[in-house]
């Protein structure tokens, strides 16, 4: 009754208002998530008119009439919000969106405006997605993203590959600091614990303008959770067990504030992992155990217009390399490749023996920011890292226990940049400086694979973005200088210290057009340059792991090559993307063409007879290459409970100069997943997913030359020691439930991988010469979330 009369009153008032007043009201508001984080690029609909929130998450409607209006707010990954409000409002409208449970996240519509490529194809792995990968390595989690695959060395080492490029051509940012490990190495996985991340973004296009030449192929941005402003103590615990390698994983995070110090927060986190040998369906993959112990801590302080943070992380791991993959001579490699089963199979054990790797990575970050009114925000970021890598080989008893490779890399980076906004233009201008010192720790008694070196890089960049109507335009430019000093030996006797100076530029242009509030197209053109890495210049000698003799660009024929013959790689990449986000259907497709001149690769140039037999000789060389492809994802809500998610990726690569293929290019693949959701009466979130990954045979694989045939091979086309394995289809499933417990949540998930226990080999796994991939694996994961605000 009362309600009815109030309604009448409003209606009456509204009616009279309509007749009496002008429609000049302004409605302004902000869209944010439950954590208080603003959501830029969200769509706000009113009476059929749609606007998109700005970088601050704000929106404004003008010329409105007093009375009731209905608003609809949408954002990818969140539940749509539809509500009524009455105008005029006395204060700014705050719309809070609730995150929705999706198994695949669509493209970030606008991203963090000043830091990553807005017009570059960006994929975001949210906390939900990352939870599915709890306990597994970073490279495995990234494999999920269309266009990203992995270069593996056995079941525990995954290196991310973005659109066919990897190692020193892609950059990983660890909490804002460029990760400096020995990423040139084919068997060196990134030393990051995915448990530290609350979100991982993959930018699949050159971000060299913002970050320098290591980002010529793309960037992987690993972000830790933002330091919460709450003073209450909270955190989360994760635990997991895996059946195939009998692995246990545990991770815990605690955070809080200080009663005495306002605006200051702390966080500590740790994770531990121990697993034994994996098993393929027919045999144990002996010596593939893993153990890991990591921790990190952060202390942050933030006022309205300035703040600082100090962050420290330590990553420590020991990884076994399949024992059967270790061969000393081409004759043994040949026997191993031709054998249908690994030549070394023992019973399951947790022990990790040679061949193995042991890596310790410490990282320290100190950062601060200050908002300067009228100018923007000044950011200063310092990162110091120490990476120690030891690789153990099977050695004679007298040498047992000594590492075969022991590298120490000490890196420092300093970033100073100014984020600014002037009218509709936003941008960033800054400088990056990096100093690296790499040394071989004496005591291995084996000639080092790469020499000692010191490297100094400095870069200056500017990126500007302009929003106009439905357009977003972006342009960027960067200039870099690199000074490299190498300490190497001629004939293993005389120490020489050649020095190099490289100056190079990068540029990018991008455009994004919002066709309507459902679709947009993007286009990005990036030109970047990359000087060859020390490993490409000075690699020398017999690489047991690769069963080949490699010679760097500077080391050919035993002479020291003329420096002027060394060219920088120049990559030109055009990426076009189309994105459609409808109510129940969304589609994202991106097609790219990447031309790289002076592309550094390993070319076979003959064979040499050593005391162990005929080894192929590969010289680093430079050629003209093209990588082009298309990938995307589809998401379809079939009804209230069932959704379909699919991804696909195809890449075509060619060595244009030699009319040949490129090695280790991922084959076409796709994945289909169907999920059924149910929200129970007690507000429990239940789901079951069935997914089918499909990989096709790599039809553009290099020709096959078995190790025993190497001495007779006269050609110059690149070759592989064995034919590419056949494609495969797998069946995976996951069942999970999320219980709210008062203001906390408990998630339990049971996952089964390779349910059909299929025997298969993966083209991108370097150990496919020796053994199958792991068979069935069941995982049980529990996550208890007791953050005090979320």
């Amino acid at each position, binding site marked *: 009754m009362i309600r009815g009369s109030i309604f009448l009153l409003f209606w009456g008032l509204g009616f009279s208002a309509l007749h009496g007043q002008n429609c000049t009201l302004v409605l302004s508001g902000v869209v944010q998530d439950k954590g208080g984080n603003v959501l830029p690029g969200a769509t706000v609909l009113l009476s059929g008119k749609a606007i998109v929130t700005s970088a601050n998450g704000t929106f404004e409607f003008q010329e409105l009439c007093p009375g009731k209006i209905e608003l609809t707010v949408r954002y990818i990954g969140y539940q749509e919000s539809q509500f009524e409000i009455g105008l005029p409002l006395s204060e700014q409208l705050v719309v809070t969106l609730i995150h929705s449970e999706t198994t695949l996240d669509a493209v970030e519509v606008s991203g963090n405006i000043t830091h990553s490529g807005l017009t570059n194809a960006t994929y975001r792995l949210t906390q939900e997605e990352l939870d599915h990968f709890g306990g597994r390595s970073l490279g495995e989690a990234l494999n999920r993203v269309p266009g990203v695959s992995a270069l593996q060395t056995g079941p525990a080492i995954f290196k991310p590959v973005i659109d066919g490029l990897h190692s020193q051509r892609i950059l990983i940012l660890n909490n804002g600091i460029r990760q400096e490990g020995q990423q040139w190495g084919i068997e060196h996985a990134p030393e990051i614990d995915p448990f530290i991340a609350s979100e991982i973004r993959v930018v699949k296009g050159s971000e060299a303008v913002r970050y320098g030449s290591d980002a010529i192929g793309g960037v992987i941005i690993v972000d830790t959770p933002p330091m919460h402003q709450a003073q209450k103590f909270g955190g989360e615990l994760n635990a997991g067990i895996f059946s195939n390698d009998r692995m246990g994983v545990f991770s815990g995070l605690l955070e809080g504030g200080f009663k005495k110090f*306002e605006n200051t927060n702390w966080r500590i986190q740790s994770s531990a992992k121990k697993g034994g040998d994996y098993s393929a369906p027919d045999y144990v993959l002996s010596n593939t155990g893993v153990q890991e112990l990591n921790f990190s801590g952060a202390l942050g302080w933030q006022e309205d217009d300035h703040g600082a943070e*100090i962050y420290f992380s330590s990553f420590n791991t020991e990884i076994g390399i399949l024992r059967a993959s270790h061969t000393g001579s081409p004759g043994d490699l040949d026997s191993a490749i031709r054998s249908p089963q690994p030549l070394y199979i023992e019973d399951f054990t947790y022990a990790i023996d040679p061949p193995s790797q042991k890596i310790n990575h410490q990282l320290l970050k100190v950062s601060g920011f200050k908002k300067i009114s009228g100018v923007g925000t000044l950011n200063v970021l310092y990162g*110091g890292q120490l990476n120690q890598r030891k690789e153990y080989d099977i050695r004679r008893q007298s040498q047992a226990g000594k590492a075969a490779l022991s590298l120490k890399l000490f890196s420092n980076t300093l970033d100073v940049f100014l984020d600014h906004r002037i009218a509709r233009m936003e941008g960033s201008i800054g400088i990056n400086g990096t100093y690296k010192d790499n040394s071989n720790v004496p005591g291995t008694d084996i000639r080092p694979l790469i020499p*000692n070196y010191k490297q100094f890089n400095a870069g200056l960049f500017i990126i500007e973005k302009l929003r106009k109507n439905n357009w977003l335009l972006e342009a960027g430019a960067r200039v870099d200088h690199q000074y490299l000093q190498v300490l190497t030996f001629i004939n293993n006797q005389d*120490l020489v210290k050649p020095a190099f100076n490289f100056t190079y530029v990068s540029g990018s242009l991008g455009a994004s057009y919002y066709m309507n509030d459902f679709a947009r197209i993007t286009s990005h053109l990036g030109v970047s340059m990359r000087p060859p890495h020390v490993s490409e210049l000075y690699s020398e000698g017999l690489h047991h792991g690769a069963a080949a003799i490699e010679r760097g660009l500077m080391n050919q024929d035993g002479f020291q090559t003329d420096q002027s013959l060394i060219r920088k790689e120049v990559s030109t990449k055009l990426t076009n993307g189309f994105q459609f986000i409808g109510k129940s259907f969304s589609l994202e497709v991106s097609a790219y063409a990447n031309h790289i001149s002076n592309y550094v690769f390993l070319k076979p140039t003959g064979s*040499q007879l050593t005391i162990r037999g005929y080894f192929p000789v590969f010289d680093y060389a430079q050629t003209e290459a093209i990588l082009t492809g298309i990938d995307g994802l589809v998401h379809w809500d079939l009804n209230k409970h069932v959704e379909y998610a699919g991804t696909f990726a195809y890449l075509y690569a060619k060595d244009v100069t030699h009319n040949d293929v490129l090695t280790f290019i991922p084959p076409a693949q796709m994945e289909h997943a169907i999920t059924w959701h149910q929200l129970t009466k007690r507000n429990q979130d239940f789901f079951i997913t069935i997914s089918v990954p499909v990989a096709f045979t790599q039809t553009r694989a290099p020709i096959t030359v078995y190790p025993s045939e190497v001495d007779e091979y006269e050609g110059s086309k690149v070759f592989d020691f064995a034919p590419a394995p056949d494609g495969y289809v797998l069946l995976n499933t996951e069942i999970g439930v999320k219980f709210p417990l008062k203001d906390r949540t408990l998630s339990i998930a049971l996952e089964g991988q390779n349910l059909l226990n299929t025997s298969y080999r993966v083209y991108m796994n370097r150990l496919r010469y020796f053994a199958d991939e792991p068979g069935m694996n069941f995982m049980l994961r529990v996550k208890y979330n007791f953050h005090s605000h979320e």
Partner: protein
Amino acid sequence: MKNQTLLRMLNRLTLFLFVITISLIAACSDDPESTNEEEVITTVLVALDPEEAAGEDEGEIITLSWDDVNLDAIVDASEVTVSGPLFTDKTYDATIQILNKSGDSEIDISQEIEEEAEEHIFCFAVSDAGISITIQDEDKNGLPLGLKSIWSTTSLESTGTVTITLRHQPGVKTGDCPGAGETDATLTFPVAVTFGGE
């Protein structure tokens, strides 16, 4: 305010860290030294000592050798030498010596092999030459080793090759050739069996 103290603390901490880093940069990495590789094999010597009956003259020892004189780890044809032919109807006591001459001092790897005999075996493969080879020595498990062997020639002249392969078989030695494990060294020598030598 307490925040100011914290700010000062953080500032000082940052400065402190900077200083540490700069001094670390300045202090670390002296020049590297060239590596002395301990496990490299540079020299393989096979000495064939003919057995004489009582009263006969001492025959000459025939040597098959590979010596990596330029230390480039490549088996150049010029580095493989055979001192002379074997003679028909004779028996030779063969001894193998393996050395690492890459460093300042000579390392006798065959001695290490003898000490780790249960992890090693020499495999002999004869092609077209009229020689049969029998291993004389054995490891502590009674399995053959091959540093010492007996080479017997037939009564016909022939030419061919003998391939000697050193297999490293920790934990997997069965006495079979090639068996499991890895090849540490393999060399093929051209050999001839001729009349004469009385």
